[in-house]
């Protein structure tokens, strides 16, 4: 057994949040090293499947962040993303996924401090929740169960 350190996957857009995280760096604002940034061109590009796949890969928490409304480099990618997230989040809650592990946020290219603060908060929140074992367990449920069609 290893000591638990939350692993946070951050899906961010290239133009606002990625740049905001760059700014946090340029401004030397410290935050915990638990976060791994995946760069997308725009939040509009983030397929909801990538959120589930983050859980499969063992992310304890996921941050999804892009430009504030009206700031999108592509004018409307974040608006489309916002609708998709709304539907996703409601469905995820309905089927019992732990949506506390997914944080949606707007962080602009100027908000280096907000980015650092966001990572801080999420890491602390997830530390409280503990390791995300639930999703990975699914891959082993229902395998090698002769004669059993109701495996739960």
């Amino acid at each position, binding site marked *: 057994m290893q000591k638990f350190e939350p692993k946070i996957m951050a899906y961010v857009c290239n133009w606002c949040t990625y740049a905001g995280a760059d700014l946090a760096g340029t401004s030397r604002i410290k935050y915990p090293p638990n976060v791994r940034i995946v760069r997308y061109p725009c939040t509009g590009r983030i397929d909801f499947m990538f959120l589930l*796949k983050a859980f499969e890969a063992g992310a304890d928490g996921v941050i999804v962040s892009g430009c504030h409304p*009206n700031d999108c480099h592509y004018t409307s990618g974040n608006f489309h993303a*916002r609708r998709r997230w709304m539907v996703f989040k409601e469905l995820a809650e*309905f089927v019992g996924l732990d949506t506390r592990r997914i944080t949606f*946020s707007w962080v602009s290219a100027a908000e280096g401090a907000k980015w650092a603060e966001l990572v801080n908060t999420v890491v602390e929140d997830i530390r409280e929740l503990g390791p995300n074992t639930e999703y990975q367990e*699914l*891959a082993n449920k229902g395998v090698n169960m002769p004669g059993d069609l109701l495996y739960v």
Partner: protein
Amino acid sequence: MSNLKTIIQDLFANDNIEAFVAYKNNKPFIVRKSEDAMQVDEIDNQEFNLAVYLNKPEIKKLSKLGILANLSTMKALVQLANENQITSDKVKVISADASPKKFERFEEVTEYIKANNKETNADLSAKVAEIKAMSREERRDFWNKEFSKCIKCYACRSSCPMCYCTKCMVEANQPQFVPVASHAQGNFEWHFNRAMHLAGRCVGCNQCASVCPMDIPLNLLNQQINETIAAQFGETAGEELNSNYTLSFFKENDKENFIR
């Protein structure tokens, strides 16, 4: 001879249709020849959504055809038209009621829907509310139990009028997003995906649940999404022509109270 049979024969004779989708002995039936019209059920009280047949490649390729449509079939037809899958030139719609009527244009179909629309999913809605009232763990266990039954026969997909992709994303393998296996993860991701892909498109015919050999209440997922979309964005699929697809449309003031 009943009105419906006459209408079908007339469609064969005057509209040059190549097939008519109806019911025979309470089961779907494709009339391929004018004389076979005599075999169709006269008055339909079937709940089966025949629109699904318009997606079957063998039928889709026909140049002209007719379909008997109950309310949910009509909604599916309108949504299929909105998604550029059918045109009123190609598909002749006959209302499935005591006095079958032929619609020349889909606009008339939407009028019929407006006039005859009824709140049918009250029980379903109550069940959705019941699940929502559960704790997160209870919801998780409820769905894990339901999904555990799934054998991935894809009857839900095959019977859904809105599942018409020639290659479903679960069959895409570069990359393979959804595991093919019917283990818990494969089943969860499949049903999650299907629900998301029907968001803003599902016409609420409940066919997915009624055909499921394992009796998984899949319609609850769609009902929940339909309710979310109606509440958040005020939209319903399949009731109006040229309506916006919820997920490729937005309003600047869409709610975002969940975004930090």
